[in-house]
């Protein structure tokens, strides 16, 4: 197959010593930053972006792949050793993982998380290699109306499916779309929402938005409610697992992968749902059901595998269609753009070396993580003890440095503060941040595709409907939006049905 040959070329590129070094730096930096409390994978990627400045794209993306996986791995270490996880996807890991750690089984919890992440990540990467070319060949036939419909689906999915409150999700999405409006309209050259400030003409850099909302917002919000007591970190030795743990872990790993990858790959993806489904399934299938809630290893193995597999799955729509469905993928997409690279089906034709080297480096990074993290876990655990004033001062310090370095504009620092205050307000009022980030990055693209569709139809609104693909997507959107109504009324209809049939 063509993609296998490309992948082998990719491996050849990654296995050069200098490239391996870059991957190693990425993995270490990603884990070190991801382990820090309060820093989730998306913030890790956003904060470490400056490392890639001045690199050529291939090297930069290899570094990125390492940071991505490292950040995720670091996050699960935090949730096992400290409880209260940094991001929604590792909430489930914390349930059993922290209980295990408290019961003196931290080493086994970390081991099943690390090995499970490796197994799931590797399997999911294989699936990525197999599935992506299929999606690409499908995506290449898509027209502007189809892209528009898919983006609408992504908007609806991130704001209405994930998260607790649809209203608050939609509010967050709208805020993001408005931020995306700022700047010169790409078609007509008209300025929108720039208030005659020249620096706003180019729009607000997505990196600045991500760093502002994630890093500055988080630092301000923590400043408002800083816990003054010292956190209790559970000490840990080198992770290891006994025969019994292996026996209880391998099936959950595989099942977790099976849940994670498809959910990640769907345009309506995310890791919350598969990790939760995996947890529920393991609980039901376990022979040790009484251990759940007290530290069952299956409850760590399954969700961790699901989390990692879904992260690889997310890369399918991100690379093949240019559609990010998680905050981390959105930040990565922004990083691609800063190199002038547009993810999408054409990317595979124009820059196959780049894409396949990136995919190959995912395999390599995954292996490096396993080799590094088993012996280094005690070191990472020490990072959890960093004094909190230094931690948050450091977050602001690196956030300013990264945001300033994008354009060398002090104006960006002012923007960063304003966005940080917005992030603060969103945390105070329970507005989710993911829809905002997706709105900022996809909003301008959706407008472009929508206008292109209408241009093809000469302004007729029917141009937005397009072909069967768009129609299917709209049907899916309608189903998602009407789901709460259906769930409320469907049982009633059924109940009315049954007596009618019997009587």
């Amino acid at each position: 197959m063509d993609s296998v040959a490309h992948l082998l070329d990719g491996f050849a590129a990654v296995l050069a010593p200098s490239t391996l070094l870059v991957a190693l730096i990425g993995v270490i930096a990603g884990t070190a930053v991801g382990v820090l409390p309060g820093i989730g994978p998306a913030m890790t990627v956003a904060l470490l972006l400056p490392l890639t400045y001045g690199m050529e794209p291939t090297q930069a993306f290899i570094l990125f792949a390492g940071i991505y996986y490292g950040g995720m791995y670091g996050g699960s270490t935090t949730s096992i050793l400290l409880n209260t996880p940094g991001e929604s996807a590792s909430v489930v890991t914390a349930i059993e993982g922290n209980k295990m750690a408290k019961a003196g089984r931290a080493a086994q919890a970390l081991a099943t998380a690390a090995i499970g992440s490796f197994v799931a990540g590797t399997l999911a990467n294989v699936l990525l290699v197999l599935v992506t070319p299929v999606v690409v060949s499908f995506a290449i036939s898509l027209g502007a109306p189809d892209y528009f419909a898919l983006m609408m689906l992504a908007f609806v999915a991130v704001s209405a499916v994930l998260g607790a409150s649809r209203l608050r999700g939609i509010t967050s999405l709208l805020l993001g779309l408005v931020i995306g409006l700022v700047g010169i309209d790409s078609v007509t050259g008209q300025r929108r929402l720039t208030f005659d400030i020249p620096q706003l003409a180019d729009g607000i850099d997505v990196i600045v938005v991500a760093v502002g909302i994630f890093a500055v917002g988080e630092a301000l919000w923590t400043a408002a409610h800083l816990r003054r007591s010292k956190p209790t970190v559970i000490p840990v030795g080198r992770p290891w697992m006994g025969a019994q743990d292996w026996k209880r872990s391998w099936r959950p790993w595989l099942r977790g992968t099976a849940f994670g990858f498809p959910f990640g790959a769907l345009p309506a993806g995310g890791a919350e749902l598969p990790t939760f489904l995996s947890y529920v399934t393991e609980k039901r299938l376990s022979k040790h059901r009484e251990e759940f809630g007290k530290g069952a290893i299956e409850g760590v193995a399954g969700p961790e595998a699901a989390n990692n597999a879904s992260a690889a799955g997310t890369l399918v729509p991100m690379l093949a269609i240019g559609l990010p469905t998680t905050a981390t993928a959105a930040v990565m997409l922004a990083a691609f753009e800063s190199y002038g690279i547009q993810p999408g089906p054409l990317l595979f034709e124009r820059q196959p070396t780049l894409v396949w080297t990136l995919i190959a480096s995912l395999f390599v990074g995954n292996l490096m993580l396993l080799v590094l993290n088993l012996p280094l876990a005690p070191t990472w655990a020490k990072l959890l003890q960093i004094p909190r004033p230094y931690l948050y001062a450091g977050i602001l310090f690196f956030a300013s440095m990264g945001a300033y370095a994008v354009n060398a504009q002090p104006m960006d620092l002012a923007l960063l503060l304003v966005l940080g205050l917005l992030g603060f307000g969103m945390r105070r009022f329970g507005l989710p941040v993911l829809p905002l980030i997706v709105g900022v990055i996809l909003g301008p693209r959706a407008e472009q595709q929508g206008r292109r569709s209408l241009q093809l139809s000469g302004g007729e609104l029917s141009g937005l409907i397009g072909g069967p693909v768009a129609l299917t997507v709209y049907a899916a959107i309608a189903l998602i939006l009407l789901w709460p109504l259906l769930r409320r009324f469907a049982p009633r209809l059924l109940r009315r049905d049954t007596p009618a049939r019997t009587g």
Partner: protein
Amino acid sequence: MSVQTREPEAADEKPKGGDRAQYGVCAFLVLLGVMVIVDAMRISHFASSNDPVGPRPVPIILGVLLLITAAVYTVDVTRGGRGEPESGEDIDLTSRIDWRTVLLVIAAFAVNAVLIEWAGWVISGTLLFWGTAFALGSRHHFRNLAVAVSLSLITFYSFAIGLGVNLPAGLLQGIL
């Protein structure tokens, strides 16, 4: 700027009853919606055969959606709807918002933004780190300063000189 600083009226934070400060969010959404629509109206009408839509409809649609959302939000709040404040490892939600700390951190951040070009990253970054650490309650002044200075120097040499990232030398131009 598209986004205005929101002043959360955090006067009442008691968990019992409705979270009245949420009306501030609704007001903010109304303001933002009106602002987006007014800005769109200002754009001269612009439509051509290769772009029948022009730059106006999208902001107008977004503005209207913002107003609708504000209305729905208001109804939600009056019915007692509330968003859960975000929790986290270092966050103690039982305490009230500590405005003094927040304002000190904002001040440290603003000082950095104002001084970065003139004084340079090493000085402004040091002030940012030192100021934030102080605001967050670290009272080891000497150690704070030592960490701040070394972080600034390390990042300056490794990023600005090593990787060629844009960081200004400012006052210390020629010395560093």
